[in-house]
Each structure stands twice: as C-alpha cells, then as structure tokens.
C-alpha cells in the first residue's frame, strides 16, 4: 500500500542526482521541481500539479533524479514503491498512456539534441538515404536486404530522383538473389526479364499526375503490391494487382499485374484458377516479357495438383525456350529435380 507522508515547508523530498526507488503523487500542498536545462544549464523551476506523479522515470530505471523536489508549503504526498506503482497503473491503463506520451516527447527532444551535436541533423534526406541503403546492400551482394530497400524506395517514390536507378538495381538484385536462392521468386518485379520492363517515369519526363504509359499511381500500386507479395501477403497483393488490371490506365503495369495475379494464385494454392489465368494471359499477350515465368508457374500449378506429367511438359518446354543460365531455367531445373525426387 502506498504511504501518505507529510512533508514540512522547506524540506526536500529528493535531490537532483540521488538514486531512489520511490514514486510520488502530490495530494495537497506545494512542491517545486527544480532542475537545470541540459544544454544551457539554466535553472528550470516548475510546480508539481496536485494529483501529478513525480520521480517516475528515475525510479523505474533506477537512474539519478533529474530534478530536486523541494517542498514550498506543508504537503501531503503519496509514496509508492515501484511494484505498488506498477500495480496501480496496470489497473488504470490511461495513466500509462499519458506517461508514454510525456516520455516519448522527452525522448524525441533529447534525440534531436544529440543529433544536433553530432551534426547529423543535416545529413541525408530520407529519399536519397533509402536509395543509398539499397545501393550499399546491392554492392555488397546482400540481395535480400537490397531488394527490400529498393522495393520500399520504389513504393515510396514511384517518381523519385533515383527511380530509374532503383528499378534497375532491384532487377539485378532479383537476378542475383535468384541465382543464390531460387526461392526468392518474387525477388524483384520482372527480375527475370531480358529488358527492364516496369516503366519507371523517366527522368526527362517527370510523371504527370495524369493517366499515361507511366501513370505514377499505377506504378505506386504495383510496387506496393509487389512489396506485399514479398511479405507473402499474396491475397492482399492479388487484390491490388486485380485493381490495376481492372482500371487499365497504364498498359504496361496492367500486363505486369496480370502476370503477378497468376503468381499470387499459385502461392495461394489456387492452382486451377492460376492455370486458367496464366493460360489466358499467354493467349492475350503471346509476347509477354514474363512468358517463360508464366509457363513456369503453370508448371508449378500442375505440380501442386500432383499432375506430374503436365508439370514436366511445361518445365521441359521452358528449358527449350530459355538460355541455360537464365534464372527461370535455374528455377525450372530445380523444380524438375523436385519432381524426380517426389516420384521415387
């Protein structure tokens, strides 16, 4: 039980720098919190409001008190141990929320002050910072983090300063990842294309907010969906791809999205739908840049349905079409091996 304690005028409950484990609430009276600004050393004098907690942060962490608590007029104070305080706030969660706000404000201010001192306040803007992280991981052949950073970049800045570079690197990172890890199928959108096929707004033609071959909203939606698929949120990704196809403001992204829908269906285990969808896609776009991948995913669907004969047919066809070192060929050979393994 917290103890009600009386303090006489001019007494001190604790001094700045003390380490203590008690938390206080002012019930009645007048208490001054006296501290020094960490930057200017200026004295800060604040009255504790009745009903207000004081000494919380230092007690919770067993840190030296930031301030001295000086009694200006006879006061009644409730004194809590840390466990008593915890018990109280756990049954009254509004207090925690309120304190969380106060603490986070203090934290943000302190963080800002430190950043100012080390002169990082004026460093990279978030846009070039994010791109440079993708670039760093790509250069160091850490493709997974590279793809994450670059995909996030493209989602956040579909018409940004480094969109062209980022989509190029994302594609290459996807290829790199496919070589080292064939499960990184979703690596980067269009990772397996011969040519960079998502149509980033070119730097010479900054994207206008109108519909067009490089409509930024379609691009943004597309990359968002790719990001979702990367996180294996295929159902959510599917919905966005579907919307892009339905609105069809941007033919290139519509075609890409139609392919992505097929991939999502495979990953969702809807093999019949996937086969139908991808077959339709191939008929509609006989020269779709993701043709071989579409065939691969049809193969995967048959494999998923345990139809090994048809799966093998599709895989064999891909190997006839693709160059030996193409990522899709690598994936296909691996899938074929799996098929053989399953048979035995």
């Amino acid at each position, binding site marked *: 039980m917290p103890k009600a304690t009386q303090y006489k005028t001019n007494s001190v409950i604790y001094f700045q720098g003390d380490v203590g484990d008690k938390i206080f609430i002012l019930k009645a009276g007048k208490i001054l919190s006296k501290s020094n600004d960490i930057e200017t050393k200026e004295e800060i004098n604040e009255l504790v409001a009745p009903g207000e907690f004081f000494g919380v942060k230092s007690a919770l962490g067993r840190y030296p008190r930031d301030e001295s608590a000086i009694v200006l007029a006879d006061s009644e104070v409730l004194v809590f141990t840390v466990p008593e305080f915890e018990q109280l706030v756990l049954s009254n969660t509004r207090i925690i929320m309120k304190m969380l706000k106060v603490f986070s404000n203090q934290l943000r201010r302190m963080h800002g*002050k430190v950043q100012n001192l080390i002169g990082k306040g004026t460093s990279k803007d978030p846009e070039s910072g994010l791109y440079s992280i993708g670039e760093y991981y790509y250069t160091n052949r850490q493709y997974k983090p590279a793809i994450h950073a670059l995909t996030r970049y493209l989602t956040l800045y579909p018409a940004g300063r480094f969109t062209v570079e980022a989509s190029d690197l994302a594609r290459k990172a996807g290829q790199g990842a496919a070589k080292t890890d064939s499960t990184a199928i979703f690596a980067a959108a269009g990772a397996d294309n011969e040519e960079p096929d998502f149509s980033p707004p070119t730097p010479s033609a900054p994207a206008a907010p109108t519909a067009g071959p490089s409509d930024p909203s379609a691009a943004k939606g597309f990359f968002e969906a790719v990001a979702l698929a990367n996180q294996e949120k295929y159902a959510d990704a599917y919905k966005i791809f579907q919307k892009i196809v339905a609105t069809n403001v941007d033919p290139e992204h519509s075609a890409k999205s139609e392919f992505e829908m097929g991939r999502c269906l495979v990953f969702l285990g809807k093999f019949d739908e996937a086969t139908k969808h991808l077959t339709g896609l191939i008929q509609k776009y006989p020269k779709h840049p993701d043709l071989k991948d579409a065939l691969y995913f049809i193969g995967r669907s048959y494999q998923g349905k345990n139809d090994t004969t048809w799966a093998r047919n599709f895989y064999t066809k891909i190997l006839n079409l693709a160059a030996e070192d193409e990522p899709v060929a690598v994936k296909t050979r691996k899938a074929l091996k799996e098929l053989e393994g399953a048979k035995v």
Partner: protein
Amino acid sequence: MSLDLSVFNRFAITKKVGEIIFCEFEPGDAFYLIQSGKVKIVKIVGELEKTLDILNPGEFFGEMALLEEAPRSATIIALTDVKLLEFNRANFEVLMQGQPQIVLNLLKLFAKRIYDQKRRFMVLTLDDIQARVADVFLMLDENGPRPIDPSDNSRTFPNSVDDIAHWAGLSVNKASEVLKQFVNQRRVEIQQGKIIVKNIMDFTRFVKSKRQE
C-alpha cells in the same frame, strides 16, 4: 517475461534470417516485439555496416513510430528466423487493453532510452576531447556488466576504435589520436577487438575535473 501472447497471434509476422524488417529512412508506422529469434540493429556509416545492437526475445524495436511517422533511424535485420508481433497506432489500444504489462515495459524502455540519450549528450558536451573519450568509457562501463571483484578497477571493453569515435562524436582519426595518447600514458591498452582501461576511477576523476571547469 512469461506472458500469454496467444491472443496477439493475428499481429504475428515471421521473417527469415537475413531479411530486413525495416530500413533506415523508411517512414515508420509500426513497432515490434520479438517473440522468438534475434535481430540486429545496423546503420551504414561510410562504406561499412555497423551493428549498433542485437535484440533478443521480449525486446522491442521501432517504438518511436507509435507517436510519429518519422523516418526510421536505423535498419533492422533478422539475425535468425524471427517471429515478431507488429503493432501500429491503430491496434496499440488492443495491446494496451489485453496486455498492459507489455505497455508498462515499453514505458520503462522509454525511460531507459531518455536516460541513455541524456548520458550521450553529456559526453558530447565535453569540450576537452580527451575527457570526451574518457567519458565514453565511463558511459560504456555504466551500461556494462559489473566487475566480479568490486575492488578491481581495470575494465575491458569489447569495442573498436571506430565505436569509441562514434560515441564521442569524433572522426576515427581524432579518436585514435586521443587513444594513442592514453596508450602512451599507460592508461589504456588496445588489443585485437578490445580496449582495456587500466583504472576506471582515474577516468572518473579526470572527467569530473574537466566537467567542473
């Protein structure tokens, strides 16, 4: 912390080893509680990826996003396969109602972070750069394990010169210059992967005298 978190399974996400959970400079809108596995906090400084910390089950990261959608200040990468609970401002209330203990832990974490930032600020405001480097060791010592023998004043830090430079807000060149002076004065020894301070009390007195100036 043995809490029943099964009610929060709908907030659970998993990441494979090597995957980024979030990236420095991305806008943040969620914070995370590690359920199983480990993550590392990294920052790319110059041409190097520097690990700032490694977090274990029960620990949080990204907590600043609860209050503002400022860009993330570091990158988090899964060090093993990890299971995380992901909370944003919208479902934070659910967490608060269901598991106030976690939020209370979050409050304690904020208290610690504020203190850490203040301590760091104290280091950086020392004008004398020797004192600043010495104070970095004091700060690291305060956060480090207690010595087994309390009368033993020598301390071994698993840090590099780069780390010391980082905390002191100095260039690596400047920091190694200062450290060299300390080595010449036989106050410090630099070995592969570690730095030994011969007498931490000597540094305490030194910093105290400089702070009073």
